[in-house]
């Protein structure tokens, strides 16, 4: 009833929608970098959206399944194969005992999410299965996958003919709303931060009109950018305040940093802007060396876009009722 890790991949870690409710105690939220792809993979595997998935980074793992289950992959295109045959992203796939899931070349994006039906059998820490790599807790012993790991499935699909299940699942029509797909766009929509007016007008103008390159040391904690250096009109010390997913802070060297899933809960740098939640997945899928450009939108627009995407998730969830029924019925058969 498990999965054997043949090759771990570059950085494969369990993530859900994050460890909420403990930020006042300094506990980072963590969670999927691309929450959109994480939720999509879950829905397509017949799960609730906050079930832990495996976040794969650039080079995917090789996994051998020792049980029948339904899986789905979403996010980056990392050329997944099942027993050597190409399989698509954004589809429920039935795997059976002895099958090997592997990944090949990246064609676009950086992070893919692997969901299994019913989830992986992981003990939650402070209400979440997310791995906080820097703090070494959560997920699988607070670390990324290693060769030889055995991961148990919480709800394998036992006692069912995988061939028939596969045929039945393949017949299900899936209408993926475009707004939920992986888009390729370097314009990142942001809402101005409370400290934006402390920058010189030239710096603000450059921030919104020039490209920023993602540096190699960017990771789950934050994306370090280089481009036009940002200067304050009157250099002042900022009192430590909270950070948010997507906060763009500017240390004294003038190079902005986008705070991501494993960010510290507080920070003492000037905050020029915040990435709109709807565009955080675009940042999460950007490779070091690629460039971003920031485009200002209002808070109302950001929340409107967020709300539209939530409606699309609602529609997809409804549309997948037959999949859940199929997998659930199998469970009790």
């Amino acid at each position: 009833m498990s999965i054997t890790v043949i090759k771990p991949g570059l950085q494969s870690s369990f993530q859900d929608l994050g460890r909420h409710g403990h930020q006042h105690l300094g506990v980072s939220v963590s969670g999927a970098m691309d929450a959109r792809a994480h939720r999509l993979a879950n829905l397509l595997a017949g799960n609730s959206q906050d079930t832990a998935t495996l976040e794969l980074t650039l080079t995917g793992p090789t996994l051998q399944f020792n049980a029948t289950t339904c899986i789905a992959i979403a996010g980056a295109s990392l050329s997944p194969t099942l027993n050597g045959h190409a399989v698509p992203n954004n589809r429920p796939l039935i795997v059976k005992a002895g099958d090997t899931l592997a990944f090949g070349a990246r064609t676009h994006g950086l992070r893919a999410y692997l969901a299994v039906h019913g989830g992986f059998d992981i003990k939650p820490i402070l209400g979440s299965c997310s791995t906080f790599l820097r703090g070494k807790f959560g997920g699988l012993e607070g670390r990324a996958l290693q060769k030889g790991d055995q991961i148990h499935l919480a709800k394998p699909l036992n006692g069912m003919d995988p061939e028939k299940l596969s045929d039945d699942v393949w017949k299900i029509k899936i209408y993926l709303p475009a707004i939920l797909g992986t888009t390729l766009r370097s314009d990142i929509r942001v809402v101005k931060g409370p400290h934006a007016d402390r920058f010189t007008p030239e710096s603000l103008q450059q921030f919104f009109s020039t490209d920023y390159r993602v540096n190699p040391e960017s990771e789950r904690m934050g994306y370090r950018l280089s481009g036009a250096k940002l200067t304050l009109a009157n250099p002042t010390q900022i009192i430590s305040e909270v950070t948010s997913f997507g906060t763009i802070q500017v240390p004294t060297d003038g190079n902005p940093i986008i705070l991501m899933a494993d960010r510290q809960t507080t920070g003492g740098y000037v905050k020029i802007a915040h990435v709109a939640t709807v565009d955080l997945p675009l940042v999460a899928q950007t490779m070091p060396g690629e460039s971003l450009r920031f485009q200002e939108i209002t808070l109302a627009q950001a929340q409107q876009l967020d709300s539209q995407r939530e409606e699309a998730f609602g529609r997809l969830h409804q549309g997948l009722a037959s999949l859940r029924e199929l997998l659930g019925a199998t469970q009790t058969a």
Partner: protein
Amino acid sequence: MNIPALPAPWRIVPQGDRTLLLVRDDEITEEGGRACAAIASALRTASIRGVTDVVPTFNSVAVHYQPRLFGSSTTYKSLATEVARVFEGVDVASAAAQSRIVEIPVCYGGQYGPDLPDVARHCGLSEDDVIALHSGEPAYVFMLGFAPGAPYIGMHDDALNIARRDTPRTALPAGSVAIANRQTIIYPNVSPGGWHVIGTTPVTMFFPDKNPPTLVAPGDRVRFVPISVDQFESIKASQA
């Protein structure tokens, strides 16, 4: 719908599309910190739908929220209205009376506090004076941040005012007790740090398997208790 105005020195501002900030435009004082903790506590008790975290800091309270749980595209304004309503009902004075005192043992100086001589020299005090000033009166926990379980404690006596180190250290041992700008931070685990390490505590600050997972929380007061090397080793052994 207009966003309600709060009485000075408070104001309410958005931070991105999923965080709302109550900001206090004033000097950092324990009284201000207590107000932040009291407001945070009231907001947590209010259990506003969609709010996931309420985080007090030195001079602000952050409310993290998930708009999808509101089912409305005017989330920020609705939330600000609700937050302002809770704010009006907060009695800061009664919150101050409830403060808990947590004793934290610290082995000062020597290998446990490599920066104690520098701090003493900079402040024009003896090492014993620094220890006495640091461990004398209980001090206030303004917030936790930097790392899980890491408290920012202050404000210490003016005589202990020293800026951060010019060059941060890359790896401080777990439990390092460090000061800067009349505040103390305790590093729960091995981490980089730019403050002056004057001692080390043998007690565990963060234990993720328990809930709550930290030794102290915002709003507590901390009394540092000087201990010997022998006591340090014995407490450390009992924690393992």
